[in-house]
């Protein structure tokens, strides 16, 4: 019984990790391949100071967002793992 519960918790953890990765990778794709390449022409109509917006994403913006993505992943994973460990203690393992 406890065994089954444990497996269930592990599966829930794995599902959360998967959905986190998927969401972050969507952002990763959108800011680089999307804003930087596929949508660069319409975005270039918008200005960010002297930057055309599409050009800015391709040469500056995507890189800043990549950094944010990795730190977001790192901190949410730490929280997910802490929740998991706490849950383990609560279930009296």
């Amino acid at each position, binding site marked *: 019984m406890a065994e089954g519960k444990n497996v269930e918790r*592990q599966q829930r953890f*794995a599902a959360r990790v998967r959905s986190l990765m998927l969401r972050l990778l969507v952002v990763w794709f959108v800011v680089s391949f999307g804003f930087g390449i596929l949508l660069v022409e319409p975005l270039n109509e918008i200005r960010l*100071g*002297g930057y*055309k917006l599409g*050009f800015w994403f391709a*040469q500056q913006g995507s890189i800043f967002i*990549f950094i944010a993505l990795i730190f977001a992943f*790192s901190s949410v994973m730490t929280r997910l793992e*802490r929740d998991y460990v706490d849950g383990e203690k609560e279930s009296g393992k």
Partner: protein
Amino acid sequence: MSLTVLTYLVVGFTFAIYIGIAIATRASSTKDFYVADGGVHPVANGMATAADWMSAASFISMAGLIALSYNGYGGSVFLMGWTGGYVLLALLIAPYLRKYGKYTVPDFIGERYYSDAARVVAVICLILCSVTYVIGQMKGVGVAFSRFLETDYETGLGIGMFIVFFYAVLGGMKGITYTQIAQYVVLITAYTIPAIFISLQLTGNPLPQLGLGSTLAGSDVYLLDKLDMILVDLGFQEYTTTLRGSTLNMMAFTASLMIGTAGLPHVIIRFFTVPSVAAARRSAGWALVFIAILYTTAPAIAAMARLNIVDTMQQSDGQALLIEEKPAWFENWEQTGLLQVEDLNGDGRIEYTADPETNELTKLDNDILVLANPEIAQLPNWVIALVAAGGLAAALSTAAGLLLAISSAISHDLLKSTYMPSISEKAELRASRIAMAAAVLGAGYLGLNPPGFAAGTVALAFGLAASSLFPALLMGIFARRVNREGAVAGMLAGISVTLLYVFQHKGIMFIPGTSFLGGMSPNWFFGVEPNAFGVVGAIVNFVVAFTVSRVSAPPPSKVEELLEFLHEPSSVESQAPPGAAR
């Protein structure tokens, strides 16, 4: 003090630091040698990874590549590709391999695919991409020495080899890690100082990242608009909008560089040196922060230096530059052959245009943008000396990381894991030092006698890593059903397809005229250029691996256990060193 003396002093000082660190960080066990005892702080590892990663090409060539060869926007493929790969590395690869807790990339592939054959294929792929990469670094060392210190190329290469030999053989990963941290500080200082000055001069904004989007000092015209305008006037295409090839080619190019980055063994092994899985994730973030300082400065240097050059060529009355009014830096760099002018129409002026028929600036090497930057901006001599030390730091740090990846693949994966499993720890440490020494000498030899294919080497290394190692690692971590047969067939198929496409364009082993499928138009595969082909090789790898796995026996149950271990939550508090986790 003359520039040469000053350069000798600055470079000599940095080399003394590297040697001092080597003596202080001697490796005493194989774990020291392969993974610096797994005790490197995540921020320190991030810094070392940044130096490991940023090569002579990033430091010396990238800004020029963006500004000249790829005409601005097209160069974005390098900026996004070489940074976006870290997202893949941080999310999908590094934490799992750190959790696995062994020393090398083929280690993982050998165990996950339960076969020596898979391990040996991985070693071959690793050596192929690391050796092609290291040749470029050795050449960078020789060129930097000969250009700044006025030694021969050979002497320069010899001195560089001696320094790497000293700290890599003595200290292994431990020595390399701490010298890389010092090298990062040297290279980033050398890269950003000229950029800050140039940005100040042109726009009044000290931050190059903001300066690039600002108006030119004393006017309300934006820098990038001015650059677009001037270039179009000269017959070039717009700087901020011109595609490299096609949209598809840019997508493929960026994707190839990204997955190549996430599959390069010398970068991956850096994440084996931190104390925990959580530290590996954080460390990847720090690595990208340190890399981004250079990578967001590079496009500013690119645009600003291009503008400076065009401005130099156009005099205020709208006429082209008079030959007798060439600035001093112009003549200095003409002597090196990186810059050449030829007064074709004999009017005593140098016309710089897009049309090769009338263009009189006949050679403008990519490297000149970073190398001549301090002179163009009229910065003091110590800045020029610093750029020399920075270029050397970038080349040496990457060379050392690559050499460690090569030598550990030989001593650990081939000797210990495959052919001589009974070898003792002490003998393995000795073997790893011998392998390192051999790798340094081999790389030096290739640097002295660069094979014909050395020109396109770094790009090729990415294609190879993208098409062989990255898919094998990704499927190894996430695809339970992929088995030994599938992985080996996939790696071989991916790497062959990539090599064939490259060789078909550039000749077998880059020997011109040996293209075996003569008569095919260039970039025949949907307009994708050879350097962008890694992603196609990777797709072939995935398809072959899944198909072959489907028709052969599923992996044994111990693989199931390994995967379960990799994916189970790693306890936050536990800071278990590698090996102790299991």
